[in-house]
């Protein structure tokens, strides 16, 4: 059932959100499904289809309720709770029934199918991605769909290996850390930490070539000189900040209609250091709010953009003896499989909480409904709350 927030304080809304999340995790075996089908689609009154834009932000590395939406965790996400949640439709129960590795889970989010590819290889998703559906169905140019991804392993996420759809209908992928490597001309002896590919296998980074292409991206696509890029990178504290910086440049220079950003600072939790995990949550919280401000102030995006924010999955609970609490997502327990999604912006009902379970594969069909394409091979179902 849905609860509409009355005109109440952010504090009340935060409490309502926290209680809902907490309650559903307490009874993870099953909640009463939502019945929040509205009388008319909010998108009927939204921006026109041609101008509509969608930005999806995923966290590669979930954050648990006790560090976020539960009372003790609220101090870590002030921006999500007080600035974004009151303006959002909030889905409390997003279940991921697939493999809990970040690349394969993100690939599943982009295809609407639980992919089974090797999480640690730079291989394309097996099924058509949202970018291919979007561009082919709507005949959009390649400049209209972009992915900003944290690690080399995500290099192939923009386009599937599904032959009848490709090649050529995918999104362009930009890897900010790879870009930085190229800009530094290989002088990265002291940047291993920054350029670490991912936190699940910190010692491995699939090798990518194409330095020339990366530098071309800088100058032709992002309209940035190498020196300006390097100078700005030196002012940032984390790879996700670099990703947001690149995303902002993309929005200003290319204004894609479909932009997918994956963040992964939170996944430092794999190192077992709770304080760094909390820092990652707080930084991601801040960056989400910054992205929303960019959306609201960029002329191409203001008023016609729908933003989706969701972790790709959760993390292990403290109670599961098979795991080690926040550190990993290996047990497949309800806490590691269950997360949330926030939607805000154009066409979204503000201040609504939906408790009914949805699957992470439902995202692509939902985007199809919003943007007007048909993801024929996706396994998920469109969220009725957006119909």
């Amino acid at each position, binding site marked *: 059932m849905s609860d509409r927030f009355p005109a109440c304080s952010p504090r009340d809304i935060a409490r309502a959100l926290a209680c809902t999340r907490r309650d559903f995790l307490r009874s993870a075996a099953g909640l009463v499904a939502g019945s929040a089908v509205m009388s008319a689609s909010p998108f009927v009154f939204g921006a026109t289809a041609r101008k509509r834009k969608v930005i999806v932000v995923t966290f590669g590395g979930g954050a648990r309720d006790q560090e976020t939406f539960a009372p*003790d965790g609220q101090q870590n996400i002030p921006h999500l709770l007080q600035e974004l949640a009151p303006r959002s439709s909030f889905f409390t129960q997003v279940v991921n*029934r*697939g*493999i*809990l590795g970040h690349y394969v889970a993100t690939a599943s989010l982009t295809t609407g199918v*639980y992919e*089974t590819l090797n999480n*640690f*290889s730079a291989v394309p998703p097996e099924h058509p991605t949202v970018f291919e559906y979007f561009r082919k169905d709507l005949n959009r140019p390649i400049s209209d769909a972009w992915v900003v991804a944290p690690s080399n392993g995500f290099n192939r996420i923009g386009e599937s290996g599904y032959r009848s759809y490709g090649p050529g209908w995918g999104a362009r992928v930009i890897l900010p850390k790879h870009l930085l490597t190229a800009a530094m001309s290989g002088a990265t002896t*002291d*940047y291993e*930490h*920054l350029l670490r590919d991912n936190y699940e*296998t910190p*010692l*491995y980074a699939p090798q990518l070539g194409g330095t020339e292409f990366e530098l071309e991206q800088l100058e032709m696509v992002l309209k940035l000189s190498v020196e300006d890029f390097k100078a700005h*990178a*030196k*002012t*940032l*504290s*984390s*790879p996700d*900040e*670099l990703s947001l910086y690149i995303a902002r440049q993309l929005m200003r220079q290319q204004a894609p209609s479909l932009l997918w950003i994956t963040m992964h600072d939170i996944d*430092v939790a*794999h*190192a*077992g*250091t*709770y*304080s*760094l995990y*909390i820092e990652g949550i707080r930084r991601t919280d801040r960056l989400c709010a910054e992205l929303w401000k960019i959306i609201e102030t960029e002329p191409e995006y203001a008023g016609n953009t729908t933003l989706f924010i969701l972790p790709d999955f959760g993390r292990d609970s*403290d*109670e599961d*003896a*098979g795991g*080690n*609490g*926040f*550190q*990993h997502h290996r*047990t*497949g*327990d309800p806490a590691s499989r269950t997360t949330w999604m926030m939607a805000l912006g154009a066409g979204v009902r503000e201040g609504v909480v939906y408790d009914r379970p949805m699957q992470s594969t439902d995202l692509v069909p939902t985007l199809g409904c919003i943007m007007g394409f048909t993801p024929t091979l996706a396994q998920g179902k469109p969220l009725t709350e957006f119909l």
Partner: protein
Amino acid sequence: MLPRDLTADQFAGYPPEARKLAVANLDTLRRLPLSFLPSLLREIAGFDYKFPAERRAVTGELSVLSGLTPAQIAEWFQAFSQLSVSPKLEQSDWPGHPGKFVEQQSEYLWSTHQLDAFRRAATEYGDRIHAAIPPEPPPINRLGIAIIGQGVASTGEPLFRNLRKHGTYFAQVKPDNGVRVLLEAVAARAAAHPLPYGHWYIDGGQPAEHSPALICVSWHGLEALRAALLRNMQAQIARPGMGPEELRTYLAQLTPADLGMDRSADPVLSYFQLKVFTEGSGTQIFSTTFAQWTAREALRRAQPVTMLVRFGVRQRQRPMNELFSKVDASAPDPAGSLIDGDMGAYYNWINQQRLPGSERSCFLVWFEGHNQAVAVSPSLAPGTQSTSAATLTDLLTWVTA
């Protein structure tokens, strides 16, 4: 091959005691499904390097299984029998390398969406085994101690948020000679109740002077091992064809001798120390992670009755802009380490409570050099606070009363 085709020769590569155990239980092993058996064989294969509590668990489990009728075997393992195993796994040398099988089986279960069914089957099986082998209560009530916040002058962080609701918060602790007092207390327990691997002292830095009756594992004491392991890993990574899965398999097969550990040392403890680094994530980099994971594994495996963990100061995680300015990588982060230690202490308590006798177990966490502590014990009311002045000796007396 299938379990029914097992022969004694297939255990030739096992260490002596493991081989003997496997051969003695060959008939029992042949009756078990392939989706389950390698998990048990992995435990048997490591038998020579297991702690006494682990050995009792393995032999007890085999004893229960050998007593089951064919109908009971079918009933107990019905859920496992319904799980598919890939032909590649079936054809592998799973008796000789059960650990490798289990790793690859895990990947297969994830990719075929059978993991949840496997979890249910494993949980059901574990419940049956626990019912068949009632847990032995410890000879004395367990005592866990965590010392956190080394080197922190003051903090605005509210400490012990997770543990306060389970115990009594003390706000006027006299910190004088606290580390020494606590170490002497655990030494006295070790002297009064000598048990093999029964009393541990884990230090995330340089260990303080302590009784030889304690099993001591420390970050500084294992510096040479960490360095050797990292060199070894780098060499392996540079090899063609090496990937994350291959590296994990390689690490699982390393022995203490491969990394130059003292051959005269206790092999059980040497293997334990090695696995802290080869199986733990972040244990090679951050001392707070090392202390938490070492305690977790010691509690899970050795089931000690005394566990004192002193969290040290870990190195900083450098932000991106500092990487450009070449700030010292080894600079310490005491404030972050305090937060890590606070959560680590909570996990120590959780892991202690998973062991038999938890209803009588005691736990004390203290902010080193300061006047804050929480004591959890059946004799202390949960969720309460005391503002009375108390020494650490007082707290130990109350918590173990």
